[in-house]
């Protein structure tokens, strides 16, 4: 009997290890030969731990599993009380366009053979037959924009690094993923790590870099473990090293672990951290593409940006660019989080309206109460009101609504949310995580917390002060931590003024 069970951190956090133990014990008790394959997650976190049993070559899902559900699994997965049917036929799976996450949840993340059998390395092999300029052109043509938050065109960044002359260049993968409501990087690294390695290798070939680093946050112990193992396996197999797939071209990489600073997700702070310094943000220019790691030309890209490169090379730039909406080309892995009935990762072409994501895909709130607000794009993203639910998911479309898509995390709140508290938290988070370089951010955020406490106590004058403070932070901060913290604060105030005013009345 062959059973697949995720080893993804979210599946583990919901009890996958106990289910795995129960499976092995039950198989031993029954004398059944069990092949237990640990995979990444499919992204249906509300169904985790999700076991998949192969019946006539088709994987049938059963979940969410508890150890108590294990014995019945041996009686036949199709008849199990928690049987879901063929996994690929589930609505959540069928409605997606899984390009970047095609293999995640499907394969054994640490089997290179499995990886290749499912299309892995095809992109790299194609890139090896291209010139650096052709590689960079392919990425430019795909329309891929940075998935880390800023949405900068990846091809343009690579072109700058390609053109820079230097004895050493670097590919740095930003795996700091500090935004609340996001876990796509984690899921990819735990579920399909070779995709990231392949993407970084193609990047190296494209711009002429022979060394890569993944800066991976310390809050992700499982991802660190899988990535380190995958790099060793790739090196042993000759995918990485002095002679990439026998091409005579070199690329190797290392995993580096962060140390719990949110601001180190900002690319220049990250570079300082990699160099062993305090994670203080650097002024730009110079751009990292010109003077990056150790002063050398450096590509800094998010995990998802780099992990999308292999499929672009496998299927072609045009294929990828044909998905999406306007200048938001390709697919985006939506991460649906917070108070939702169905939370998880859903990869789809850009353009789906926010309301459809929240109501149809996520199924509304877990509590069953009405949706009050959705914070899109992490702690620096705006709170979107249900009145804005027709906004299509795209960079320009969200910008036009006073918001941003960031790393594509959506955090849903029901009507019990206290928006004044959420605004206060945004300021508090900025104060805790500020790198300290600019006064508007370092001091402004502390003042912001105090000011919101005064609003809570009913001080009417404090609201004007809050708006001034937000203007100063937006205008006078070097990076988006100080510069964008006003987004969640001001959107909460704009959409829910009565919550800021009600407190005033209550106190009077």
């Amino acid at each position, binding site marked *: 009997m062959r059973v697949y069970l995720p080893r993804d951190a979210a599946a583990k*956090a919901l009890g996958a290890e106990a289910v795995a133990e129960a499976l092995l014990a039950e198989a031993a008790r029954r004398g059944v030969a069990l092949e237990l394959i640990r995979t990444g997650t499919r992204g249906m976190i509300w169904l*985790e731990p999700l076991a998949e049993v192969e019946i006539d070559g088709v994987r049938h899902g059963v979940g969410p599993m508890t150890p108590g559900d294990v014995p019945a699994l041996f009686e036949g997965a199709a008849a199990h009380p928690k049987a879901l049917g063929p996994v690929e036929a589930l609505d959540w799976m069928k409605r997606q366009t899984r390009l970047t996450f095609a293999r995640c949840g499907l394969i054994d993340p640490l089997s290179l053979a499995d990886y290749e059998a499912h299309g892995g390395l095809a992109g790299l092999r194609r890139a090896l037959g291209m010139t650096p300029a052709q590689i960079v052109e392919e990425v430019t043509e795909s329309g891929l924009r940075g998935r880390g938050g800023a949405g900068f065109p990846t091809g343009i960044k690579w072109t700058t690094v390609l053109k820079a002359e230097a004895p050493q260049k670097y590919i740095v993968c930003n795996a700091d993923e500090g935004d*609340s409501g996001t876990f796509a990087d984690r899921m990819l690294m735990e579920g399909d790590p070779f995709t990231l390695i392949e993407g970084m290798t193609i990047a190296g070939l494209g711009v002429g870099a022979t060394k890569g680093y993944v800066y991976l946050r310390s809050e992700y112990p499982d991802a660190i473990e899988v990535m380190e193992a995958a790099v060793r396996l790739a090196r042993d197999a000759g995918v990485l090293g002095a002679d990439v797939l026998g091409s005579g071209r070199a690329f190797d990489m290392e995993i580096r672990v962060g140390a719990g600073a949110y601001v180190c997700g900002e690319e220049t702070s990250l570079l300082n951290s990699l160099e*062993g310094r305090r994670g203080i943000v650097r002024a730009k220019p110079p751009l990292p593409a010109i003077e990056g790691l150790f002063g050398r030309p450096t590509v800094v890209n998010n995990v998802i940006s780099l992990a999308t490169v292999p499929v672009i090379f496998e299927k072609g730039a045009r294929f990828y660019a044909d998905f999406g909406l306007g200048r938001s080309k390709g697919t985006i892995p939506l991460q649906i989080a*917070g108070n939702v009935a169905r939370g998880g990762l859903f990869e789809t072409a850009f353009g789906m309206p926010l309301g459809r994501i929240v109501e149809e895909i996520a199924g509304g709130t877990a509590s069953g109460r009405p949706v009050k607000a959705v914070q899109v794009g992490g*702690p620096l993203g705006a709170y979107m009101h249900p009145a804005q639910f027709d906004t299509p998911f795209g960079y320009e479309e969200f910008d036009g609504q006073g918001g941003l898509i960031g790393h594509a995390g959506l955090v849903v709140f029901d009507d019990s949310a206290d928006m004044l508290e959420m605004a206060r*938290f945004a300021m508090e988070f900025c104060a805790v995580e500020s790198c300290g370089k600019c006064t508007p951010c370092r001091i402004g955020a502390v003042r912001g917390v105090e000011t919101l406490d005064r609003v809570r106590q009913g001080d009417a004058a404090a609201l004007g002060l809050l708006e001034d403070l937000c203007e100063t932070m937006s205008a006078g901060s070097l990076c988006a931590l100080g510069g964008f913290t006003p987004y969640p604060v001001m959107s909460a105030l704009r959409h829910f003024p009565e919550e800021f005013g009600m407190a005033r009345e209550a106190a009077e």
Partner: protein
Amino acid sequence: MALDTAANPRLARLEAILDAHEGREGPLLPILHDVQAAFGCVPAEVIPRIADRLNLTRAEVHGVVSFYHDFRDEPAGRVVVKLCRSEACKATGADALAAAAEARCGVAMGETAADGAVTLEPVYCLGLCACGPAAMVGDTLVGRLDADRLDAMLKERGL
């Protein structure tokens, strides 16, 4: 500089860590992680030697240690409970859970119990945002945590 490593086994351990990172690019963070794994914190006594080996000033090394939330100057309690305080977990009741955890552990967020049994810490996202409130109890990640489950997990760890 000769070091009296025979008299101080901790310093011998430190030398081994420093040797292991010899020749790496930007070795300070990996070194500090290894030091903390070995000693439970980054003790003040190791800073001069790290500075010496990396050709940095003590102030520079201290500056780095103090910048990052992960590095401690004193060891944590026997069990470390990290509760996610970020938005997605707040949307699913993390604030109430934090209050319950403080009451159960008898310490405020960010503190270690006087008997060294437990440390309660905030963490800003564990990537478990689709199954909040999330936490890490010792080395175990847990999602959809509530006060009863936390109580049971602490009991399993003798608390």
